């Protein structure tokens, strides 16, 4: 540690069982003046109880409108090392899978060109390189692309798609989340790198309704695996659960939201026509129960955080879509973007746009038929604007 860096407040965060980012950052402070000044400024924030960053407008790599977040210290004289402290979002591989070699290469690049600090990972999914100066952006980008890495999205563009571990290591996966994520990321490079939308558009892919990527809450478009036919049952494995100490009645039967499970002797019976695919029984009895065989995905649209019009969960737009090829998905996405382009307002997310314009109009616009799975219930107010009606005496 450098002698001139005193951080009595941050030092308190070196205590305790949880891994300490302060300890970790300090291990870089001697090598990197940038990290030293980051700690210095952070200590000041802790003392003064306020942040000292300025929003950055206009930095990036040549040709791209996304992938870099400009950030400047509000105290550049005191902390020159962080007078520029931009972030670069490196597009992660599907499912956040890496090899040690690949990660080490990325670390080498970042040690050479930036602060050596990163986020594993950003909320959108990218591997976030945290902190470099404007002059290093282009060299970092070249070093990345030389090793076959590229930047992700930021600004009013397609944000970096991300997906759960899916079929790579999860028996619940109802479609290949990794392949779709790869496919969409590559198919929409232009939309990812050159902001052309009203606002951001996030796509998250989860392989089943457990929704490990929080697609329904955190993406404008969630693609969530689902099945249509019967839950697959291994009765022998179920009998073993019965023979174990497990309270099947309390833990499974009574917890089914639609009461569609019963047990006769050592056999489980499921009324699949009433199952709402909530995953509870499958999660609880992983050896005996598995998702069905007729698999695909449900599409939700419109989740977003509270800014600007209040937060929204995504809502079901397509209850079931075949996922054996991705052509239909491209087609759907293109139609949605087309509509949003035409009808959306500046800084209006797709969910807000649909609320303003009305779900019915939106469906008509992208060519989908209304189905009851899209709503909790039909409307309960009578203020209907009828479009089809008979003119008086029309046929007379």
């Amino acid at each position, binding site marked *: 540690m450098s002698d001139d860096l005193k951080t009595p407040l941050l030092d308190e965060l070196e205590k305790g069982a949880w891994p300490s980012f302060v300890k970790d950052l300090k291990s870089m402070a001697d090598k990197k003046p940038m990290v030293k000044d980051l700690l210095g400024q952070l200590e000041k924030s802790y003392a003064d109880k306020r942040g000292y960053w300025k929003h*950055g407008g206009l930095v990036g790599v040549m*040709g791209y409108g996304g992938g870099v977040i400009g950030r400047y210290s509000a105290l550049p004289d005191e902390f020159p090392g962080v007078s520029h402290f931009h972030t670069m979002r490196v597009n992660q591989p599907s499912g956040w899978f890496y090899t040690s070699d690949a990660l080490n290469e990325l670390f080498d690049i970042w040690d050479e060109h930036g602060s050596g600090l990163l986020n594993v990972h950003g909320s959108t999914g990218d591997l976030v390189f945290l902190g470099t100066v404007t002059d290093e952006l282009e060299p970092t980008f070249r070093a990345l692309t030389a090793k076959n890495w590229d930047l992700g999205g930021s600004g*009013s563009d397609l944000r970096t798609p991300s997906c759960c571990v899916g079929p790579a290591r999860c028996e619940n996966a109802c479609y290949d989340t990794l392949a779709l994520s790869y496919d969409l990321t590559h198919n929409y490079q232009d939309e990812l790198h050159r902001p052309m939308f009203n606002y951001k558009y996030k796509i998250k892919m989860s392989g089943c309704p457990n929704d490990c990527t929080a697609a329904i809450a955190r993406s404008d478009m969630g693609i969530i695996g689902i099945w249509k036919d019967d839950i697959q049952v291994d009765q022998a494995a179920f009998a073993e659960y019965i023979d174990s100490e497990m309270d099947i009645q309390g833990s499974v039967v009574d917890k089914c939201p639609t009461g569609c499970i019963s047990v006769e002797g050592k056999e489980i019976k499921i009324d699949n026509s009433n199952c709402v695919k909530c995953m509870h029984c499958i999660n609880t009895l992983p050896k005996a129960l598995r998702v069905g065989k007729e698999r695909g995905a449900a599409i939700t649209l419109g989740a977003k955080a509270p800014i600007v019009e209040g937060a929204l969960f995504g809502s079901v737009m397509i209850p079931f879509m075949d996922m054996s090829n991705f052509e239909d998905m491209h087609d759907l996405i293109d139609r949605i973007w087309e509509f949003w382009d035409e009808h959306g307002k500046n800084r209006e997310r797709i969910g807000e746009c649909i609320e303003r314009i009305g779900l019915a109009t939106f469906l008509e616009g992208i060519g989908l038929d209304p189905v009851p799975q899209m709503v909790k219930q039909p409307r309960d107010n009578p203020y209907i604007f009828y479009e089809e009606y008979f003119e008086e005496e029309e046929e007379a």
Partner: protein
Amino acid sequence: MAGISIEQIADDMYQLVAESAGQKKLKSTDLTKAMTSKYGDQVSKQDCKAAIKLLIDSGRCVYGYFGGSSIELPHKEASAN
């Protein structure tokens, strides 16, 4: 139909960006809509995309970000000292 060249569209777009500099930040969609209303179906969305790419890649314009992405004239880093 492709009567208008990409270069021509890019020049027109540049004109718009230059005129509104300091008053209104224009987005991709604003430029595209301006072109389609000027030239009707002589220009396609693809042409407009290509024109924007040309503007950016040539360095005549840059992307900006203040609460939404815009296309602007290059200038000094806004918040830098």
